[in-house]
């Protein structure tokens, strides 16, 4: 086992020990676990078509009851079912966005950090420019060009997510590049890409995970914001933002219509923020405040 891997293992153990000590971080973790569990198993106990999609005008705008926990919307769809399936969409888009941003960002950051020079400089200048465009403007422009829908939304969010990951990976590559164990690996004749994969990336995981949680929280906020203004998911989709957009005109007499989807957003975003904060503190105890 390489030194980096050994270090990594014991480091993660102590990170977990510190993370576990914080009630608030554990709360975030259990909130996220609950969201994943409920939305993951939703297909088993809720029928997507009949409860979340099909109109049922006989049952429209019913207040919360034992039958419909969160009431029904203007088309008689079950709000609880839609909120649960909304979690699926938000989490799915969030995870896909992060995976893509991380993959692309890591490649760019690694190249820029490891090889440096003119190419690295040019790449980072591009990242600078991307970073200076607020994510929402970037997303709106992309949706304007490509049209709305889940796929384009993922592209839009990925483009604004890439630079931050590129920055993190690059700075980590730069600090680790000259450390002894990498020099040693070089001396043993390991190839560059092998060094990046085996030595550099394992050390980068901590800050990356922290960034990933923040990024996912922001993605969820952004997806719902865009859907709310009609530039995200089509309005028939059970997405939290589009649900709120639909609910706006009924909210005076049916306030539960805006209450539950909104609380779902807050729960998801808060869970991720709590995990991110807890992890950051656990990774670097000196920073704890």
């Amino acid at each position, binding site marked *: 086992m390489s030194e980096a891997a050994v270090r990594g293992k014991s480091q993660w153990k102590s990170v977990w020990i*510190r993370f576990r*000590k914080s009630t608030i971080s554990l709360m975030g973790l259990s909130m996220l676990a609950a969201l994943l569990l409920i939305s993951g198993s939703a297909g088993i106990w809720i029928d997507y078509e009949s409860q979340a999609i099909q109109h049922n005008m006989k049952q429209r705008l019913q207040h919360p009851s034992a039958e419909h926990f969160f009431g029904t919307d203007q088309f008689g769809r079950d709000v609880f079912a839609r909120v649960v399936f909304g979690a699926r969409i938000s989490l799915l888009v969030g995870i896909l966005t992060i995976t893509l941003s991380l993959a692309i960002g890591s490649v760019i950051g690694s190249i820029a950090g490891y090889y440096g020079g003119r190419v690295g400089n040019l790449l980072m200048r591009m990242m600078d420019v991307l970073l200076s465009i607020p994510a929402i403007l970037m997303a709106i422009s992309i949706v304007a060009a490509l049209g709305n829908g889940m796929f384009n939304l993922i592209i839009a969010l990925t483009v604004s997510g890439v630079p931050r990951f590129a920055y993190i990976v690059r700075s980590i590559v730069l600090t680790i590049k000259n450390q002894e164990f990498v020099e040693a690996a070089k001396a043993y004749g390991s190839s560059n890409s092998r060094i990046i994969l085996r030595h550099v990336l394992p050390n980068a995981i901590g800050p990356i995970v922290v960034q990933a949680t923040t990024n996912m929280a922001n993605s969820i906020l952004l997806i719902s914001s865009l859907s709310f203004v009609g530039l995200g998911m089509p309005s028939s989709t059970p997405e939290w933002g589009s649900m709120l957009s639909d609910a706006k005109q009924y909210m005076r007499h049916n306030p539960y219509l805006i209450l539950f989807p909104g609380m779902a957003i807050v729960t998801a975003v808060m869970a991720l923020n709590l995990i991110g904060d807890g992890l950051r503190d656990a990774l670097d*105890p000196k920073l*704890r405040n």
Partner: protein
Amino acid sequence: MTGELLDIRGLHVVYRTLESDVYAINGLDLSVSEGETLGLVGETGAGKTTTALSILKLLPDRVGFITKGEITLDGVELTKVSEADMQMIRGNTVSMIFQDPMSSLNPVIPVGKQVEEVLTLHRRELSKREIDEQVDSIFGMVGLPPSRKHEYPHQFSGGMKQRIVIAIALSCQPKLLLADEPTTALDVTIQAQVLDMMRDLKEKLRTSMILITHDLGVVAELCDRVAIMYAGEIIEMGSIDDLYGTGDKHPYTEGLFGSLPSLTGDERRLHPIDGLMPDPTSLPQGCKFYERCPKRTGHCEAEAPALNVSGTHSVRCRLFAG
């Protein structure tokens, strides 16, 4: 009154962190008489800085606690003094020079103002003009042109910054000066200058001093007595002659001084000794140096040694018992 300016008895300090309790000081006895300079020597983590911060009662908020013991300074029992009264003592009766002059000065306040602040706090009777004159004379005293008092810390070199820090510490002519490795962060040539200046000022102002250092050469040059700290205890204390002479010493001190305990020799730095200090979160029951001691016996592990005093020299080791 015993004639001692500072008298510490049975001091215990604990740092309570989220993970564990760190036992930083474990029953420390220490005294400094008027005009005397005591060298406090030990490895990093031995508790030297903690000792100084305890005297100032500036242990980290909500983390560092004095759990037991007394600290008497100039007849006042500091552990019982209120925070408001402590503010009158800090900078006035006792002041401290910190290790790193680079970060010890506030970057956004002109250095003259930072010296002036101590005077306005503790010399209320002085008028604005008198304070101004004082600041100028203090600048002259530490060898800096008073005309530069309007400049900011970043405009000075490391050695000059340390002179400013010393100026702040001495401006109210404190009875006790705590100097925490005042020259470690400086260039070797500057070190000598700053030390010479400190010695002159100390004599001129008749200030007592606790000099915390790694540098045995500096101790020999500046100090009247030496105390060796290990794992939050004083394990040996004596006059310069006691420790730098050829007499028997604590095995740890022997290790520190290496094979050439000479006042003039090249061995100025601490000698590395194999092994590490015991984990301060769970200290051993017996002698704290047991693990690393070349002269250990079975007894040492089970029972903590008492301090054996003979004249000016005291040693915490069984070898010196009886």
